[in-house]
């Protein structure tokens, strides 16, 4: 499964975009499965809005077009309401926010890796939760 940071990298020119594109490519060509909590839709939407609002060179038309394509990708989404309880338990046990824990809870539930581009998350949690993997280590 992937988090919002990885999803956005497939769409924007930024560090590790090519790795995110390989992941997306593998999914759209049915070489791998990708799952995510529905929280990803809000986080990516918010990050895109922020980029356009802060004048990062992206117009509102750019971010709207990106978002339209992002929601077109048939990712396997899971409702946060079904993950929230397990996410709270993980947040308490790992002393970490529920927002990150929602992704971790889904990875536990599905018994799969969580691929993220968030180095802080990997540094803090990958020791205890070894299914968390940085995008830079992904080679499809």
């Amino acid at each position, binding site marked *: 499964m992937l*988090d*919002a*940071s990885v999803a*956005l*990298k*497939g*769409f*924007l*020119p*930024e*560090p590790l*975009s090519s790795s995110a*594109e390989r992941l*997306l*490519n593998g999914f*759209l*060509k049915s070489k791998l499965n990708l799952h995510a909590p529905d929280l990803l839709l809000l*986080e990516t939407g*918010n*990050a895109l809005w*922020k*980029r356009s609002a802060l004048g*990062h*060179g*992206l117009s509102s038309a*750019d971010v709207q*077009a*990106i978002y339209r*394509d992002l929601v*077109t*990708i048939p990712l396997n989404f899971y409702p946060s309401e079904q993950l929230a309880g397990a996410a709270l338990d993980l947040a308490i046990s790992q002393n970490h*926010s529920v*927002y*990150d824990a929602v992704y971790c809870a889904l990875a536990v539930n599905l018994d799969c890796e969580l691929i*993220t*581009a*968030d*180095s*802080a*998350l990997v540094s803090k949690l990958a020791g205890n939760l070894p299914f968390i993997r940085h995008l830079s280590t992904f080679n499809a």
Partner: protein
Amino acid sequence: MRRGIKRVTNGKKLKVKPSDRSQVLLDRIRHRREQIQDRVGVLEDSARLIRQERESRF
């Protein structure tokens, strides 16, 4: 054009394969990303933006 129909050739409708649709989507995403890069260069890491947002909610 109806979704799933590519074009009409000699009166026959050709279905768009899912793999074709995926390739069109991937090509469009890559093209837009390259256009943005030509215009504004490499952007700040989305992971950092999202991290800031997650922590600001705290």
